[in-house]
């Protein structure tokens, strides 16, 4: 645990906290969006909020892979899983996310569908090799972090001529989503989502590098600090953002220098480019249609594209009308604003995707921060 615990040292945390407190200007608000669910998780798990002055506010962004998948796409996966002869596999978090009509992949499994949790795309390939009588679909989700492993699986499947394997692709892109948050008129109109700076993604940036954020730091004059996922990384990055804001700078700075370079992982990027191309449009939960914000599988790999192979199309999804996940994902509401939070919607009975994953804002609030939320909940009643 050496090299991990070093980044969780409470003594250093208090030093950085003192520095942040000394440098913030009392008449100024610092509204910082942490894009990634990994940061949201760290902020709650380690109690980072307790170490920040009141005018430094963290706004939780949409960077939780299972949270932003629109219900319509999940419904497609559930329908696919129910087809005879299909084995659908995906990463653990996805299994509990509620789709339309209170369905989920776990419920489909209980009703007889063959749904498996895998820890790696290679496990999905292995399932296909070991079960030639079944068709194995890998339900691929996630940002740039999980895309290269899916590319590897597709390349291997084609090289091996593995005919009973395909991928249902839902890989999405971070920079497009951040631009959308800053650009969308309804979001700009809402004063609640004024954002003064961004904590940039950690693992995503390991793959894509720091360079892709340069455009909107300049275009929208918002500082970005790429931050690691450990709590000291988060603290130090907040200090760096406070300094940029105080000095009127809007640059891309890299706090996570131990893992992120300007251009990222060239090998991974090349792999991804070989197998995927940009989809003209993709629907995000909370953000709506975002142009060029997701990958589709290239024609050369069409045989391994579950959507084409099974002729899937996205139907009308049923959202729970009272669920505030879409607003929470844009940073326009906080979990305790939602009428369902902590009442009908809990981690045990999630009604919205943000309550499922540890990276979801609602789950983090519920799991780690209910004490702070409690008075507010009572006031709302």
């Amino acid at each position, binding site marked *: 645990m050496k090299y991990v615990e070093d980044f969780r040292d409470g003594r250093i945390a208090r030093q950085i906290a003192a520095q942040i407190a000394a440098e913030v200007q009392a008449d100024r608000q610092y509204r910082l969006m942490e894009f990634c669910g990994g940061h949201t998780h760290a902020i709650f798990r380690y109690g980072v909020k307790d170490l920040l002055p009141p005018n430094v506010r963290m706004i939780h962004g949409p960077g939780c*892979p299972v949270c932003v998948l629109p219900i319509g796409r999940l419904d497609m996966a559930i329908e696919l899983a129910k087809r005879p002869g299909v084995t659908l596999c995906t990463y653990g*978090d996805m299994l509990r996310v509620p789709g339309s009509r209170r369905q989920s992949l776990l419920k489909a499994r209980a009703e007889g569908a063959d749904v498996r949790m895998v*820890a790696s795309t290679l496990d999905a390939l292995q399932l296909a090799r070991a079960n030639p009588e079944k068709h194995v679909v890998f339900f691929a989700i996630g940002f740039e972090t999980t895309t290269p492993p899916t590319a590897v699986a597709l390349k291997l499947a084609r090289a091996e001529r593995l005919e009973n394997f395909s991928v249902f692709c839902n890989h999405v892109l971070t920079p497009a989503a951040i631009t959308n948050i800053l650009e969308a008129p309804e979001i700009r109109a809402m004063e609640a989502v004024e954002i003064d700076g961004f904590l940039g993604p950690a693992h995503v940036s390991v793959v894509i590098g720091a360079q892709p954020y340069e455009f909107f730091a300049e275009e929208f004059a918002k500082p970005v600090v790429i931050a690691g996922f450990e709590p000291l990384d988060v603290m130090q990055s907040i200090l760096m953002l406070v300094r940029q804001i105080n000095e009127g700078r809007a640059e891309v700075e890299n706090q996570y220098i131990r893992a992120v370079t300007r251009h990222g992982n060239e090998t991974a990027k090349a792999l991804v480019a070989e197998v995927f191309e940009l989809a003209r449009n993709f629907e995000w939960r909370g953000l709506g249609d975002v142009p060029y914000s997701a990958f589709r599988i290239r024609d050369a790999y069409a045989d391994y594209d579950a959507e084409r192979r099974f002729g899937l199309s996205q139907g009308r999804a049923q959202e729970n009308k009272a669920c505030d996940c879409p607003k929470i994902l844009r940073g326009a509401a906080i979990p305790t604003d939602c009428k369902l939070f902590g009442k009908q919607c809990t981690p045990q009975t999630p009604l919205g995707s943000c309550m499922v994953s540890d*990276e979801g804002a609602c789950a983090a609030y519920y799991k*780690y921060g209910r004490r702070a939320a409690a008075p507010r909940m009572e006031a709302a009643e």
Partner: protein
Amino acid sequence: MKHARWLEGVVEMGHGAGGRDMADLIEGLFVAAFANDTLTGEEDQAILTLPPGRIAMSTDGFVVSPLFFPGGDIGALAVNGTVNDIAMGGADPKYLSASFILEEGLPLADLRRIVASMAEAARAAGVQIVTGDTKVVERGKGDGVFITTAGVGVVREGARLSARNVRAGDRILVSGTMGDHGVAIMASRAGFDFETDIVSDCAALNGLAAAILDAAPGTRAMRDPTRGGLAAVLNEIAQASGIGMTIREAALPVRPGVAGACEILGLDPLYVANEGKLVAFLPPDEAEAALAAARAHPLGADAALIGVVTADPDRFVEMETLFGGRRMVDWIAGEQLPRIC
């Protein structure tokens, strides 16, 4: 000659049909391994004489996959699980029953290994397996073997342990490192291909529990944090007693290998299962004596006092983090699943 048969072959439907094959299985395997005067294979019940006093009784079903894992197997779990549930009530476990649901096709050599492990665990815990049952289900309708054990024990004089007894000011003791069993199981499951030297902590806790109760007779409650881990036990007790708790992350014993595996998989050791650890809630003036007694016992060398019970109408369990903040320790919802990003 007869023994050789137990090494070859597989469980067949006939082993549960009530005929000669079943009688052979019972006599040649179970009765021989569990060797005690009460279990003869000839009676439908065990007839026992218990010492005077209150009786603690408990039952538990075991469905673990894989059947064999580093540090134990389903047989040892089935004995220790019920022994521990009885011991957590301040009782001295005496007798167990064992009911087996076997899946057609289970290698008899595996069954023999499991039964031998149960016999060994029973001997180590000082209990006797005095009655049992065997059923066979068709291939595909079980997961190799399911075992249900039940047991009785005699509650020690004066002990009044209950989940409802815990009060503000009490101290919380854990008997050792958290999460070993769950990580050992996960590491040996298909899909999580990583190497670790972590083995299950599967063990009978009656000796350790007795040592703690000798040193701290005022102990309010004890629990073994199995499924749902430490977090589940703390929340159960907080609910039942109507109190809150504050634990300190810095005081929590976790092996580096377990912490590392949890880090890779995105799990939290607080929610990972244990099979040979206990949590004790102690009146403050007996806490140090209980800690010393636990540490003097071979199963309690890493014991630690991890926090205090607070008066809290919300019944929240909170943790002071290593980082200097505070966070809630909630129940687990559903299964703990690895994170994606």
